[in-house]
């Protein structure tokens, strides 16, 4: 069955495979990153990091450090306590956090003191000269033991290491499991990894004119949340301007990353001089705002004899580390697509968020939905294996069908549109599974080699609504419902385009390619001719920033909205000038022309000249100039019900993907090698295949990292053992296979042009498909991937254990 042709409007620029407009400046080293920013009199900070996982700070002797020539100041938790409020925090207020530890340290790497000096070298000399005395406290590393009453407490004010607990049940899970012909159960652990951008988080803060503190930083989302940084610094929000600086990669790690800019701002305020603090790799690995999920699951899935899923029962303990800055939003994310692409209606989800002596969790590509998808797909694979169904068959039987959209899932979120069989069929059409299944048998029998075939799917929720951050709480402190994005288009007096975006959205994605493509589509100018800039927080219109695969959809809405307003003005000017009714005019290829008589037209330069310089030629009462702004609100979100039996619509723009991998496993070394890998994604209308392919490839590479290589590991004593790239293993081009990518386009009915987000899908499915392929390769040894990353040692020990038992 071939994928049906999907009808969609033809666009000239949207959907064209074009080079990114960001690349020329990046390729010649003119990216303008935070470390490139020089200022007169700039000081540099370095941080003393806690060597202890849990300890009371007894004393910090700064005298020797302060005697080093070039050391300007040393700031400690005492200074922070005296002059700051706690940092921004979306978790319980009883779990307070400061950018420098106050009274006690709660994980290895937490900041203990900041040394500010004339150079980073001298600052690090100063750090070395500090003498800090700690009184060790009992260490909490196992998140399940952390919840036992006798465990030592991380936060006395909170009274427990249970940061948060809630159970949601939609439908009737007991009935669903008891009605099932088969219930599969498993214990699964998703280990901690994180986005590892080439550039770490950094900020340069400067006390500016009129008592305004300027913080230049590569963190995201500060047009949305700047006032929270001002609050931490105890200054009025209009006395803080956050200047956007492009980020050299993020993958979540710069999403609202607040500790670095807040600290830089604090150091500038205390010293009265500009201060730069850029994390080095050690800082970033052990103390970034954004270690990823670290979850322990007990999962049950019911299925009927013919493979229909009846329900899913999840009991998850999430090891959030020492702080709970985003609350449990990473589980809200999982809820947006808790049933995957499947039709089952009964779901129970018990969450306990544990506090331990580890770095806090934050955002990593997928924001927790990738973990849930791995668990869901692990359970589907287990059911399929026990029922003797091929992985594609059990999925096909359970898919939500095309005529069911928009589809409301248990819990309340909506899936806008989709064609899951078409995605599966396209993937199956790109790889000859029959060949590989025969080859698998031949290699096993004739050459003693083990190859496995994995197939998995994912939903890719995109365009979050901010309700996902608080529907967990019955009485949320700040039940925000806005998550808009804005754009300003200016046509200058010569007809050239300026486009201003109202958040720092450049974090390794393609915000300028996307937004200039929309300008091109609307006005018929080339994308490369449009100049893009970013507003600082003193000037920004409402903007939320990228995250949750929202930016392409949202900025397209904002730019198109601004474009419509500007087009109307151009047509009104032309109508007045040409003495033609406005409804008889159209804008085609950068000219306003009479419908059916294109020779009667005005170009943008002529119209712009009128708008700026010839007020007497304008229609009466029209303002001079050609600039329009538009704020695009979330296209479709609803409130959760007060009793939370329905969480509302909070992530309704939902794509889909199917990956198939053929992987060889060496049972004597545990090493793996790919023979083939296909990835088919449906992200609605594709804006630019090249940049979407980049997203899929990068996401899948990171998924592979979380599956086989990357681990932010703490030992039983709470020591951090992944402190350099010798131990935190990011896969390189040698480990990542070429992904063969295909697209299906099912437009969203709710967004401009039908675009869906596509930034995270790769990472949402690779862990499932690689786990499945490893299991399949070593099926005769009873291999079952239950913990990520799955290391060579795990594979060999499973094989050896099975051989010893047989």
């Amino acid at each position, binding site marked *: 069955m071939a994928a049906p042709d999907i009808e969609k409007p033809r666009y000239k620029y949207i959907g064209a495979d074009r080079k990114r407009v960001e690349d020329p400046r990046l390729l010649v080293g003119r990216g303008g990153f935070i470390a490139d920013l020089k200022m007169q009199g700039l000081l540099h900070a370095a941080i003393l990091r806690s060597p202890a996982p849990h300890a009371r700070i007894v004393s910090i002797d700064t005298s020797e450090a302060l005697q080093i020539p070039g050391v300007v100041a040393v700031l400690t938790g005492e200074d922070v306590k005296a002059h700051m409020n706690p940092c921004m925090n979306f978790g319980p207020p009883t779990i307070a956090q400061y950018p420098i530890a106050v009274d006690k340290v709660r994980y290895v790497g937490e900041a203990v003191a900041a040394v500010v000096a004339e150079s*980073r*070298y001298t600052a*690090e*000399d100063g750090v*070395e000269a500090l003498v800090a005395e700690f009184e060790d406290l009992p260490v909490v590393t196992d998140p399940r033991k952390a919840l036992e009453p006798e465990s030592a407490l991380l936060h006395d004010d909170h009274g427990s290491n249970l940061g948060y607990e809630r159970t949601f049940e939609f439908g009737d899970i007991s009935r669903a499991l008891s009605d099932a012909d088969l219930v599969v159960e498993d214990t699964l652990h998703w280990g901690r990894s994180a986005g590892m951008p080439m550039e770490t988080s950094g900020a340069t803060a400067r006390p500016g004119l009129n008592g305004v503190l300027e913080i230049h930083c590569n963190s995201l989302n500060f047009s949305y949340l700047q006032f929270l940084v001002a609050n931490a610094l105890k200054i009025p929000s209009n006395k803080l301007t956050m200047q956007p600086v492009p980020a050299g990669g993020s993958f979540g790690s710069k999403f609202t990353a607040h500790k670095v800019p807040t600290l830089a701002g604090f150091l500038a305020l205390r010293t009265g001089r500009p201060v730069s603090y850029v994390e*080095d*790799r*050690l800082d970033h690995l052990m103390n970034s705002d954004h270690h990823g999920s670290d979850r322990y699951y007990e999962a049950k899935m019911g299925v009927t004899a013919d493979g229909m899923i009846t329900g899913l029962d999840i009991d998850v303990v999430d090891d959030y580390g020492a702080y709970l800055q985003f609350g449990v939003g990473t589980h809200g994310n999982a809820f947006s697509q808790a049933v995957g692409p499947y039709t089952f209606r009964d779901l129970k989800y018990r969450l306990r968020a544990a506090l331990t002596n580890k770095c806090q969790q934050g955002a990593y590509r997928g924001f927790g939905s990738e973990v849930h998808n791995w668990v869901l797909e692990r359970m589907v694979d287990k059911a399929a294996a026990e029922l003797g169904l091929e992985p594609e068959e059990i999925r096909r039987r359970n898919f939500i069908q095309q005529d069911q959209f928009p589809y409301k899932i248990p819990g309340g979120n909506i899936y806008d549109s989709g064609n899951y069989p078409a995605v599966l069929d396209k993937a199956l059409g790109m790889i000859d599974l029959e060949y590989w299944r025969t080859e698998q048998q031949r290699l096993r029998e004739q050459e003693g080699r083990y190859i496995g075939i994995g197939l998995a799917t994912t939903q890719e929720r995109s365009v979050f609504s901010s309700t996902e951050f608080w529907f967990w709480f019955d009485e949320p402190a700040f039940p925000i419902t806005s998550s808009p994005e804005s754009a300003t288009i200016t046509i200058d007096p010569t007809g050239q385009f300026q486009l201003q975006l109202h958040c720092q959205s450049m974090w390794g994605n393609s915000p300028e390619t996307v937004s200039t493509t929309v300008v091109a589509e609307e006005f018929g100018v080339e994308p490369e001719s449009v100049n893009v800039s970013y507003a600082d927080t003193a000037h920004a219109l409402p903007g939320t920033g990228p995250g949750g695969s929202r930016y392409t959809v949202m900025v397209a809405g904002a730019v198109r909205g601004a474009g419509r307003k500007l087009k109307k003005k151009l047509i009104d000017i032309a109508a007045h000038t040409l003495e033609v009714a406005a409804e008889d005019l159209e804008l085609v290829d950068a000219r306003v022309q009479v419908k059916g008589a294109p020779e009667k037209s005005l170009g943008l330069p002529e119209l712009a000249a009128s708008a700026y310089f010839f007020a007497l030629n304008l229609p009466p009462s029209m303002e001079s100039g050609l600039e329009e702004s538009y704020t695009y609100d979330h296209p479709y979100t609803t409130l959760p019900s007060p009793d939370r039996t329905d969480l509302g619509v909070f992530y309704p723009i939902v794509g889909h993907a199917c990956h198939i991998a053929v992987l060889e496993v060496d049972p*004597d*070394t*545990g*090493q793996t090698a790919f023979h083939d890998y296909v990835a088919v994604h449906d992200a609605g209308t594709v804006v630019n295949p090249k940049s979407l392919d980049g997203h899929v490839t990068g996401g899948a590479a990171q998924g592979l990292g979380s599956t086989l*290589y990357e*681990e932010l*590991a703490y030992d039983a004593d709470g020591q951090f*053992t*992944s402190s*350099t790239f*010798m*131990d935190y*293993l990011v*896969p*390189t081009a*040698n*480990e990542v296979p070429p992904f063969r990518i295909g697209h299906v386009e099912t437009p969203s009915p709710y967004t401009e042009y039908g675009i869906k987000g596509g930034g995270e899908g790769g990472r949402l499915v690779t862990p499932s498909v690689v786990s499945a392929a490893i299991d399949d390769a070593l099926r005769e040894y009873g291999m079952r991937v239950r913990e990520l990353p799955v*290391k*060579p*040692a795990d594979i*060999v*020990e499973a094989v*050896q254990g099975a051989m010893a038992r047989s």
Partner: protein
Amino acid sequence: MKPPKFMYCDPDTVEDAVALKARYGHDSVVLAGGQSLMPLLNMRLANPDVVIDINRVTDLQRITRDGEVLQIGAGVRQSVLETEPLVADLVPLLGQVAPYIGHVENRHRGTVGGSLAHADSAAELPCAAVTLDATMVVQGPAGTRTIAAGDFFQGLMTSALDPDELVIAVRLPVTTRTAGTAFVEVARREGDFALAAAAAVVELAADGRFASLSVGVAGIAATPVRATAVEQALTGQPATAATIAAAAKEIAGQVTSADDMHATSAYRKHLAVTVVKRALGAAVATAQERSDGS
């Protein structure tokens, strides 16, 4: 990640380099390719008063044949081992080992002497040196002396080099034409240090039995080790997959590395046996090819 203050010297000659080493001894480090030293400096795990940069000492960058010995200067870049015909011709194992040292970018900077002096037990060149019965040539204030590879590597990142001495060269016996050589490594990623690696040089008698063999293993103990029990078990035995598989198990007893985040001890033992088995198998195959071809 900025180094503490140090004095920097860049001598032009071996004599000047040795004089600096003699003068500053323990308080100095030698900078060759810098692939291990620079991270140590930047992370302040090394805190020397003096850094002696030997990159200008061109006398250390030569490869020469001296009768039945190939002498490689300490300053020769590791990537040269992959491309230099003299190396491929006289000591082919080096060319097989070199591609596993880090990535090509590392090998363009990293030096032969630097890797040997650093004495990482999971590194490839120390393993090759032990396997090939290499001899280190070192020079200090009292002149030059030679140290057999087996005596040179003494413990975790520890060698027999005195603080006032400099590694000048490594001397390697020319491999016989009929020998088979092979290197097998398992690492988490390409370019990482070995979880376990084995180098093998074998000579087969006319009847297909092992006439002699030498097997070195990296990554399993505080130093690279010779698999002496394996060698003894196989000498004089038929070079078959079965005898190799049986004898390779002997290496497990030499695995002393503790569990770490990349490998448990049990896994490392299994891996050591696996790489020894595979290296011997591959070396035997090349020996058979070479004798068939001659």
